[in-house]
């Protein structure tokens, strides 16, 4: 709540609102003025297309925090250094409203009207799939700190990159680890929301179980706003050892509440995405403890690098200071997307604004980039099903534990904590 109040209309927006009124009805005139093309050369300008309203506003909000924090921190550190001079970073936002059509217009606005140097990507695969072709056409670099849907990388867009490994990898690897916990699960019930990301998640969970030779009792997809008591009742009658669920935070909350109401109690729930967000914990109001999740990053994690933020813990502190909430991996990956640009621009060595050829060069640099950050090592695949997706950062299973439902790493990794398993209340 606090961070939203902080975002009340500032002066710049106000000017834009005033300009907007003028633009109404006289598109032509506004078009000639170019609406915001008055950019100077003293800053790197990034366009941020993300969904602050509509169905996917949860995640949109998280990505915004990630991008904002990167901008704030880098500007406090003097900006991006190119050939001995420093250039501050400027972000300009457009709300894609979880709507591909609005997202596509926003992308075009960023490129032709705002004349940004590069774009930070939208939240949700539907919007990404509408934005990416525009990046292709305009040859503008585009990194998304949140795009986890495998569909995006299958399209092989040359100008689109993603810092979060696709969910096919995250959910599968975490699921396999959770299935290896002792006592080993013999059966699993897989449910999910019938949405592009969620369905990919649920099917990755199912694949993981089948790989491990665990019986999959059901693979049950539902509309996101369904009443989850039906799923819970079916699952309860199947009596699985574990329940896996692919969806967004809202559906996790509804599912777990329904499970609580119907006394459905498997050895553990594994939900992805978002158990490590305060949205999820607040939504369940203290009943989140014991839930398994997957992540590629945690505040407590050790990573090799520390560009801009010294460590994961430093980043988490900065995030808490700024937003009064613990960051999750989407936020971290969004900040990391900024750091990747930072590194790439330093390598490029060109002052803003970037020309078309410089933008193309930036894309080539991104293809080969290797950045060590608080978030982990970032590189992008150059071929295959995960083309331009960062598959380097390794996924981990987590569990919410302790009084304040802190997410801790569980499973087989060296730093893993003991899992509360089978989960006792």
């Amino acid at each position, binding site marked *: 709540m606090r961070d939203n109040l902080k975002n009340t209309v500032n002066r710049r927006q106000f000017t834009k609102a005033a300009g907007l009124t003028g633009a109404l009805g006289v598109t032509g005139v506004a078009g000639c003025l170019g609406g915001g093309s008055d950019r100077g050369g003293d800053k790197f300008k990034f366009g941020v297309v993300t969904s602050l309203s509509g169905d996917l506003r949860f995640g949109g909000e998280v990505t915004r925090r990630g991008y904002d924090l990167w901008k704030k921190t880098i500007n406090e550190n003097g900006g991006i250094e190119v050939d001995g001079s420093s250039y501050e970073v400027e972000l300009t936002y457009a709300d894609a409203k979880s709507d591909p059509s609005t997202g596509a217009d926003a992308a075009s606005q960023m490129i032709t009207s705002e004349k940004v140097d590069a774009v930070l990507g939208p939240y949700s695969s539907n919007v990404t799939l509408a934005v990416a072709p525009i990046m292709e056409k305009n040859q503008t670099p585009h990194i998304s700190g949140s795009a986890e849907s495998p569909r995006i990388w299958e399209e092989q867009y040359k100008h689109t990159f993603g810092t979060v490994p696709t969910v096919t990898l995250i959910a599968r690897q975490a699921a396999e680890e959770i299935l290896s916990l002792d006592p080993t699960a013999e059966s699993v019930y897989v449910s999910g929301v019938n949405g592009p990301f969620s369905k990919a998640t649920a099917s990755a969970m199912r694949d993981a179980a089948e790989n491990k030779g665990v019986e999959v009792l059901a693979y049950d997809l539902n509309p996101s706003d369904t009443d989850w*008591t039906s799923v819970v009742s079916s699952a309860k009658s199947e009596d699985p050892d574990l329940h896996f669920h692919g969806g967004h935070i809202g559906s996790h*909350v*509804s599912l777990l509440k329904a499970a609580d109401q*119907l006394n459905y109690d498997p050895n553990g729930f594994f939900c992805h995405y978002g158990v490590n967000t305060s949205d999820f914990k607040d939504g369940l109001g203290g009943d989140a403890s014991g839930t398994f999740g997957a992540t590629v990053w945690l505040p407590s994690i050790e990573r090799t690098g520390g560009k801009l933020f010294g460590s994961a813990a430093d980043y988490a502190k900065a995030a808490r200071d700024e937003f009064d909430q613990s960051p999750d991996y989407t936020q971290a990956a969004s900040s990391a997307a900024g750091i990747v640009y930072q590194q790439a621009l330093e390598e490029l060595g060109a002052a803003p604004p970037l020309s078309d050829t410089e933008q193309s060069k930036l894309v080539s640099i991104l293809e080969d980039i290797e950045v060590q950050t608080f978030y982990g090592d970032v590189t992008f695949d150059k071929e295959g099903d995960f083309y331009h997706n960062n598959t380097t950062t390794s996924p981990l299973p987590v569990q919410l534990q302790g009084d304040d439902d802190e997410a801790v790493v569980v499973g087989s990794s060296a730093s893993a904590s003991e899992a509360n398993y089978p989960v006792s209340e």
Partner: protein
Amino acid sequence: MVSTELLSQSIINGLLLGGIYVTVGVGFALVFGVLEIIDFAVGEYVMLGAFTGAIVAPMVGGEGLLVVPLAFVAFFLVGVVIQPFIHHVTTGDRPMPLLMGLVFTFGLATFMRGSILTIFGPNTRNVPTNALSGGIEIGGLGTFPEVRVVTAVVGVLSLVAFMYYLYRTTGGTAIRAIAEDRDIARLMGVNINRYQSIAYGVYAGLTATGGVFIGLIYSAGPGMGLQYTAFAFFMIVLAGLGYLPGIIISGIVLGLAQSLTAVYLGGELVFFVLFGMIYVLLLVRPEGLLGKGEVA
């Protein structure tokens, strides 16, 4: 659990889900039947009620149930103030009053939803309760989630209270007179403005109360209202427009169809079956499931 228990559990789930829809449908049926307002904001009253629960409950010891009377009173007052506006746009010499009311309340709904999103952000919020958690298991039948049972009971009770008010009290008689014929009611000395405002206030209060319970069952979020708006519409046409007790039947039908489809045909099909069913039912029985509604 054996499969007969899954069946009985699914029926329980369906009936209780129907109970949730009843809490939303009751007030809506009243404003439609009596005030002839098709209120697009109905789901937003649910959302506002749930939000009130999420924000006020932590201040009153974390007990969402304590918010119920407050929500009723607060939204009763809100409704009383909003009604004259709706009344104004749906009367007079305006063309297509039905549509005017619809669009006005569409604007109202957008305003409510947008305000909450802007002020409180997109997060899902918990509406806490200590009194109602978990479910009561009844051997052989299944589990009755406490909070859902209470919600369904409240839904049915408010319907009964409504019926009592409408048919046994002076105020109710006045409201029914208005529904019959505004001009005659006015001639009879009924202050129609007052009673219409009261009726709308009661609707807003009741729907927000339903929202607190829905918040207890699920959670509160700024975008939650839309689906309840849709369900409220479907509830009243299946009930038969203007026929209040039909609300129970349509709640049961919608709840059971949803629950049984999810368990026996597949979760993906739930809304396809539900909306398809509503469409077909409307074509074959426009006068409602019981055939007691009025056909326009």
